[in-house]
């Protein structure tokens, strides 16, 4: 992944601020999974998972795992009061009907209009889209958490995605180790810089046109 654990957690901590009382939330694998650590219990969030749980809780204590109770990645989880189990068609009905308030996903590329590419690198990595297209197209708010650049230092926020799309104009927010962007009316608005980066760092390593918000702030 390239990012240190502290940086990954800072991104997750920032993303958690987007979650408010009673929301239905789906977290993707990788950094998005860490967001659960920063959601306060008294917000009564219902975590949704594609394999058929609403009201998923955290990892159970070692020794008390249940082989028949896991998240979409196959890892053991617990449930919160009010949780329900259902089949995969219902799990995706919840998504398609627009009942998810927020989905938090990783990405390979995001364009300045909010196009997301996150499921295929043709000829190299072809894992299949899983539920990514359903989630990115249908959740009310789509937040992308990712490295600001790829392992070669190339921008991942670009004018136009070069990889096949997951969704057109689907992203609402992008949070990287360097900055927080909002996708608004086809424009990429820079609202926050992640400490210790500077505006210059962000502009130099972003491959898209940026609108810098006049009230730009720093996230510690």
């Amino acid at each position, binding site marked *: 992944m390239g990012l240190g654990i502290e940086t990954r957690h800072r991104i997750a901590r920032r993303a958690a601020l987007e979650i408010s009382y009673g929301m239905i939330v789906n977290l993707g694998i990788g950094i998005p999974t860490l967001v659960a650590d920063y959601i306060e219990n008294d917000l009564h969030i219902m975590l949704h998972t594609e*394999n058929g749980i609403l009201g998923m809780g955290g990892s159970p204590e070692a020794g008390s795992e249940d082989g028949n109770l896991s998240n*979409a990645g196959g890892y053991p989880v617990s449930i919160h009061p009010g949780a329900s189990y259902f089949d995969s068609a219902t799990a995706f009905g919840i998504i398609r009907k627009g009942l998810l308030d927020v989905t938090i996903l990783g990405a390979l590329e995001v364009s300045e209009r909010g196009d997301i590419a996150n499921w295929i690198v043709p000829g190299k990595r072809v894992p299949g889209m899983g539920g990514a297209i359903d989630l990115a197209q249908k959740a009310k708010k789509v937040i992308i958490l990712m490295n600001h650049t790829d392992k070669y230092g190339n921008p991942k926020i670009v004018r136009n995605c070069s990889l096949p799309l997951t969704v057109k104009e689907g992203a609402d927010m992008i949070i990287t180790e360097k900055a927080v962007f909002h996708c608004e009316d086809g424009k990429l608005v820079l609202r926050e810089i992640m400490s210790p980066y500077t505006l210059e760092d962000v502009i130099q390593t972003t491959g898209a046109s940026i609108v810098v918000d006049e009230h730009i702030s720093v996230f510690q």
Partner: protein
Amino acid sequence: MAKGVDKQITLESASAYFRNGMSLMVGGFGGVGAPPTLVNLILEKNINDIFLISNDTGFPWIGPGKLITEKRVKKLIASHIGSNPEAGKQMQEGSLEVQFVPQGTLAEKIRAGGMGLGGILVDVGLGTVVEVNKEKVSVNNKEYMIEPALIADVSIVYAKKADRYGNLIYDKSARNTNPLVATAGQITIAEVEEIVPVGSLDPEEIVTPGVFIDYIIQSKGVDWKWVWELKQGTGSQEGQPSK
């Protein structure tokens, strides 16, 4: 011919329903909830050239992933193969034909097949490669793709509990695609952990009505628990279990 009220058969009898070249639908999600005893039976009986329909290809040694690893599958419809590198390798080599379908659309195509529908109208994937070669239709001024329903020669599923009529109850998130797959086979065989007499299940708690189920077999136990035990341990993430 009526199927009767006692659908429990032996594993040996169940093997008669698996044939080379069959289309096979397998329940489960990431291997969890896939029927391990039936998958092993298909391997033991040397069934080949399978057209597999499954949410995913599990892990190389868990769930339907085993069928891929042992090169029994020639064509696959799935939403994801990322946790099974062997599937990706065979796809790149050209020995495995793969058609990807968004996960929710795949579930609904299977559900439609099981519910006797011709297909579904869906907009998930419009504007992406998903829409290539898809027939489209406008309903209430919204554009949809027509996604044909899926059925299979044989469906295999896992259930936690069943009565001998084949009424099925699942367990927590091991339910996943099983209730859908259970309805979409020309023949459906359920692998069950606990088989009880007819009349001992509360009709209110039954998830899949036994009318969809042709046969049930006694499970020899599930093997997916170590998916995450392996990943948490120091051993290989993808390798064959050492135990």
